[in-house]
């Protein structure tokens, strides 16, 4: 009896969180899927149009162009961030003094509002009087069209993302480095392995769990990149640096085709989930002892929430 009552009590305690979850995650998600099957101009009636919005999306060259941009930014930015972060973390971990200080400094880019970062870099990239081109001219490279030429504009977006998020991966890897057991590395040293060999044979493999967490989080976040693109390049020139989520925003909140935008978001959601399934499968294969499922599940909800929210707003 007593046990039953406490069980009920536990459920009551969970209820508020569950309600919030339903209101801000499950409902928008379902609404988003329903909306993607309808035609809804703001102020007008909602019409059911079947898969018309999806047909529109699949035939829409601009959408796939922005999707390609997104994929390029995600792959290049996350790859560069990971490699740079690994080098940084490896060396910071070897420092005896100043680790704490560096860790605080590293947090700064993450503490800044993305809009501030966007405006700061917009000034940096300014082709006429921006500091970046000035510095480059000192070493003989001049007049890089950061924002005004397609190709470079994508590079600019990637650079900002790298600047903003490399410290994040560095911190995760640094935590990973600090929790590595010492003995295997010491025994490898006594066995005669050089530092490089120790890194690739042992350290790198032992860091895989942290690496996968960092890469998964960053890939999902970067796939939804919006703020940087919106402020630094505004997606231009043309749509050459526009991300898929910014395009969905334009369709939904500039052209007020909410149904179409919802369809785009559902497609993005499916892609993210697909990639995520692959990562999960790979992770399960690579390490049996890895128990970060909870964290990843949270992230999954988070991404669903964000994408559906973007379609929902307005």
């Amino acid at each position, binding site marked *: 009896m007593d046990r039953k009552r406490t069980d009920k009590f536990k459920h009551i305690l969970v209820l508020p969180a569950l309600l919030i979850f339903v209101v801000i995650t499950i409902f928008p998600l379902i609404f988003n899927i329903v909306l993607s099957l309808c035609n809804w101009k703001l102020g007008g009636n909602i019409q059911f149009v079947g898969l018309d919005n999806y047909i529109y999306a699949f035939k829409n060259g601009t959408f796939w162009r922005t999707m390609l941009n997104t994929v390029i930014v995600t792959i290049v930015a996350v790859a560069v961030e990971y490699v740079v972060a690994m080098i940084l973390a490896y060396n910071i971990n070897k420092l005896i003094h100043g680790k704490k200080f560096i860790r605080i400094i590293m947090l700064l880019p993450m503490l800044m509002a993305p809009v501030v970062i966007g405006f700061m870099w917009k000034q940096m990239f300014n082709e006429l009087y921006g500091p970046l081109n000035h510095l480059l001219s000192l070493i003989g490279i001049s007049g890089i069209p950061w924002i005004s030429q397609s190709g470079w504009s994508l590079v600019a977006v990637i650079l900002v993302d790298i600047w903003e998020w490399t410290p994040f991966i560095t911190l995760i890897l640094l935590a990973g480095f600090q929790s590595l*057991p010492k*003995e*295997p590395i*010491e*025994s*490898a*040293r*006594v*066995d*005669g*392995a*050089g530092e490089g*060999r120790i890194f690739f*044979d*042992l350290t790198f*493999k*032992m860091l895989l769990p942290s690496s996968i967490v960092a890469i998964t989080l960053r890939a999902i976040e970067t796939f939804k990149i919006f703020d940087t693109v919106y402020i630094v390049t505004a997606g231009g020139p043309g749509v050459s640096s526009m991300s898929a989520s910014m395009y969905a925003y334009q369709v939904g909140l500039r052209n007020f085709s909410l149904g179409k935008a919802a369809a785009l978001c559902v497609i993005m959601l499916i892609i993210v989930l697909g990639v995520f399934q692959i990562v999960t499968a790979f992770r399960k294969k690579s390490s*049996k*002892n890895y128990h970060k499922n909870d964290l990843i599940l949270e992230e999954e909800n988070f991404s669903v929430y964000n994408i559906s929210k973007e379609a929902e707003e307005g």
Partner: protein
Amino acid sequence: MADVEFRNVCKIYDKKVHAVEDLSFVCHNGEFFAILGPSGCGKTSSLRMLAGLEDISKGEVLIGDKVVNKMTSRERNVAMSFENYGLYPDFTIFDNIAYPLRIHKTPEETIKKKVLSIAKKLHLLSTLDLKPSALSGGQKQRVSIARALVRNPDVTIMDEPLSHLDARMRSNMRSVIKHLHDQLGLTTIYVTHDQIEAMTMADKILIMNEGHKQQIGTPDEVYYYPVNIFVAGFIGTPQMNLIESSIRKNEDGLKAVIENTIFIDVSKYGENIYDGMNVSLGIRPKDIAISHKFEQGFEKGKIYVVETLGESTIISIQIGNTILRVEKDGYLTDWDFDDEIFFQIIPEHIHLFDNNTGMRIIPEDENKNDAN
């Protein structure tokens, strides 16, 4: 294969903690050399300095004839088995054991042969395809030993390799390690806090306490001629009885007096002791005779507690404030709590230690120049 020598080696952590102070010893080629001491005595620090995992604060470490202070572990050609195993978590057991061979570019054929042969000796054949996380503590430790023994290093270092094994496996592994040491002709430096391991396996034992060398000697030297009170109390189970005593002169000459009632003949010390000297008298529990009734030269005491171990029985006797432990073979049932007991401390077997210095007083007739 090579000699190992420590010359006045010190290890100081953070400029304050003196883990090892002025340690000098030589371990000759082919010797099984045990470093024995309680935890925190600096034995592991000494090993890590030898392996190249810690800087040497002062002094020199030599392997062969070369000073290795500035060499990396790789250049020293030593193998080490760690207390916490130090296995490579992402490798199979086979790859773990094969790793040092692969680093030294051994042909795969030879690697396979060597790994299988060592795995067989250490009962690891069934685990070769598994990863370390699937193994029990004892198996992990054996893998760690196998990995250290698989190549022929100049020096094999073992840091408490048997500490995580159960009693049966431990005694089994003692003989396996000793056998491999002899068979492969290794030079082994073996750290342990377990005196049975040191006594049974080692050719020579270095006993350390609080960073200082206490004694170096063969197992029988440290057992029969302990250089000071620490060694006397540390070596041997049950522990040697160490009793406060003083030297007094009576009509028969000098006697060691215990509790003002027991007078023990110490004539073998001759000139090395004097009237009024404060000493500790050491006597091993085996070297005390007991009897139910009074015999010539026996003293009276009361039984404090009787502990039966099956193969032997330990009887504690109370004399005033002093407890004297006596060990007798066999399972004895004829002694009871609070019974009267008569005992004799056999004078030939006693040790005297100077209370001021803690050092053993050497009997005059002892030709043997104490170990060291």
